[in-house]
């Protein structure tokens, strides 16, 4: 394969579940050699609700493409010694264990730095390595609650709602990937590695920062406002035919853009509204929003969300059909752009997975099948440490490799 952006970067991947695995999968797409180190039997998420008993769970498959797998028992002192030998020859170590676990294993940053001063160690934690909450456990939803996104999502007269997308977990993975590459660039000048730390709570606060505006304006918390955009007509999710759970289109005409409003009324066949005094500008439209939204709904309700999107999209009006997860994998745009990749998995057969969400014109990002547990143990130990098949056999007989 042609050189890729991160060709030559070797990553020891100690991650599990989502926040860490998304980071290393991303770096794998960009060309890094990601060696996933798993306990004998495999990382836990391989068994997280397996759809077919005994086979790797989809949970695992969506986060672990473009990696090699090595099984190694880090609870055994000789397993740790072997890990440290790998770390001597690696550029990056990534982990997202529960607080304190790496320290308990004797694999904290100081130890790793002692064997390889060029090593970049990335640590993902729910609340970070310091501060009053640092020992607290976290999950995606916990990070969403404490990062502020839940308080502003949902309807005003109802309870806070979590955001469907996993911004606490995958959001943290992408932040960590950015930090690792920045540290790698710095190392090319300094020759030294460093410690990278990312906290899930802080990642959510970063993703939601644009919604702190209300606080600055009046010192009060930002409120939940459902789907509405204050001042925007149209601005929200409009119901479409045939009226199913996700048959909606999100439409927004920018308040400051009267041309966009004219394009919108032309697209829905209501040019008469241009001269309507209720539609003089965004302010008057907002005052008459109930009546105007009724007119808009009358138009959307008789069309499918795809028809609504095609009509408005072509007219230059921002509009998105509310796609569900099944429609997503079939979406003609994502498929035309090659964003949905089909892989052949050793035991699960053919699968469609969303590919790398970043396109580099000089670095292809194919998706390779997630490895079986320990699939590359002998290959990696031979290639990186020069161990022979017999050496590996002996380690295996001692139970170090599972």
């Amino acid at each position, binding site marked *: 394969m042609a050189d890729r952006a991160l060709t030559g970067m070797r990553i020891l991947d100690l991650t599990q579940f989502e926040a860490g695995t998304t980071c290393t999968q991303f770096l794998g797409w960009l060309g890094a050699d990601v060696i996933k180190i798993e306990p004998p039997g495999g990382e836990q998420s391989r068994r997280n609700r397996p759809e077919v008993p005994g086979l790797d769970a989809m949970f695992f498959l969506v986060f672990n493409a473009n990696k090699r797998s090595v099984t190694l028992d880090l609870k055994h002192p000789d397993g740790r010694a072997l890990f440290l030998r790998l770390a001597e020859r690696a550029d990056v170590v990534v982990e997202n264990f529960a607080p304190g676990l790496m320290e308990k294993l004797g694999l904290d940053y100081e130890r790793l730095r002692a064997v390889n001063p060029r090593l970049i160690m990335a640590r993902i934690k729910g609340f970070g390595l310091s501060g009053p909450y640092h020992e607290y456990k976290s999950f995606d939803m916990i990070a969403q609650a404490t990062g502020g996104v839940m308080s502003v999502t949902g309807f005003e007269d109802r309870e806070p709602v979590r955001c469907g997308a996993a911004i606490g977990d995958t959001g943290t993975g992408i932040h960590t990937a950015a930090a690792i590459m920045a540290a790698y660039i710095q190392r090319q000048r300094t020759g030294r590695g460093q410690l990278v730390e990312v906290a899930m709570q802080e990642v959510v606060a970063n993703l939601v920062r644009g919604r702190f505006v209300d606080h600055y304006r009046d010192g009060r918390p930002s409120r939940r406002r459902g789907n509405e955009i204050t001042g925007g007509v149209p601005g929200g999710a409009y119901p479409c035919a045939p009226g199913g759970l996700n048959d909606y289109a999100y439409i927004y005409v920018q308040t400051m853009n009267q041309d966009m409003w004219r394009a919108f009324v032309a697209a829905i066949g209501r040019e008469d509204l241009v001269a309507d005094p209720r539609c003089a500008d965004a302010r008057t439209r907002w005052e008459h929003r109930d009546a105007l939204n009724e007119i808009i709904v009358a138009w959307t309700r008789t069309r499918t969300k795809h028809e609504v999107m095609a009509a408005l999209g072509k007219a230059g009006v921002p509009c998105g059909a509310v796609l569900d997860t099944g429609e997503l994998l079939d979406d003609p*745009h994502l498929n035309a752009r090659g964003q949905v990749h089909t892989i052949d998995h050793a035991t699960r057969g053919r699968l469609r997975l969303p590919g790398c969400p970043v396109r580099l014109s000089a670095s292809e990002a194919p998706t390779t099948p997630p490895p079986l547990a320990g699939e590359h143990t002998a290959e990696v130990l031979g290639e990186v440490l020069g161990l022979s098949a017999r050496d590996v056999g002996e380690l295996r007989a001692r139970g170090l490799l599972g």
Partner: protein
Amino acid sequence: MPKALAGIRVLDLTQYEAGPSCTQMLAWLGADVVKIEPPAGEPGRTALSDQRGEDAWFFLLLNSGKKGVTLNLKSPRGRTMFERLVTTADVLVENMGPGAMDRLGLGWEALRRLNPRLIAASVKGFGGGGPYADYKSFEWIAQAMAGAMSMTGAPDGPPTKAIGGLADTGAGLHTAIGILAALVQRQATGVGQQVEVAQQEAVVNLLRIHLRDTYATGKPVPRQGNRSVNAAPSNIYRCRPFGPNDYVFVHCATVEMWKTLTKIVGRPELGDDPGYADRRDRVKYIDAIDDMIEAWTEKRTKQEALEILAGAGVPCGAVLDSTEVLSDPHLRARGMIVELEHPRRGRYPMPANPVRLSDSPTEMVRAPLLGEHNAEVYGALGYGEAELDALRRDGVI
């Protein structure tokens, strides 16, 4: 102070959020980010302000650490100055509407001719090459088109938008990753390349976990409010004094977490009951379990519940509102919320960089005033004071 991206110059043609969040991250990591705005300012600075004539809070939240210059790209002299800046740059980032850069004559081929080492990054709603390429997008459109809205909200309610910058800041961070990877590659190849991120695809990436149910059942993932179909307890629970955000989220993944929780709420027998050991089995008793937990949380504030539960190893998060996030003692102790001073807005709390590098500390510097660094940046290109005055008078800067 050492910086990961010291010596990297970024020309920032971005506006609103998707682009500025990318270049702000690069600035935090040490790049020299020169934000180039039209002489009246970018729309995120002006149109979104709560006070006419003052920089919008929105702008201040997304443009820290950058230098600000003004430049009219449509004037011939402005164009020449821009081309000179391009020859000094490593990276250019833009998130204009589809086709806008080409209309300015600043498409990839033109930029590459000016500077073959340049990395040119674009954030678009849907990206080039598919049927939606020309469609406009912004945060909620991309959330709708990526499945996020379909899975957010109450089971008996409509699809609901999530009020985080999933598509905006999310796409911005994906773009930062692409730029950093291209910088690494350039060290080997000596040439730049194009980086493209579509908001729709960035949001798909953020929710790929939820596709697993679709693989298993072939059906769309349902909206579940705050509950999970696969685990109990996993929900929000009301706390005193019952304000709109007085809740904690509690999620028990392992049997140990469940046992600890049952002891705390005074029902230890359920912790020992094998019928309750698996989080999936507990879904059968979801209503009773939720009632049991809420009966306990209702007697406490969310901060009290957080300390007791999280302190005992039960994953728990207080539902913090935006004001509480800005004053959260943990975020303050860690320096994630810092106080900045703005010459016109005064002191304000600013969420800092969520990414910590031990050898590249983040310095938080407030967003620039409009054209604040014109003299510095154009001075370095050789423009003298008299020339800058003339350019200002002629509306070029």
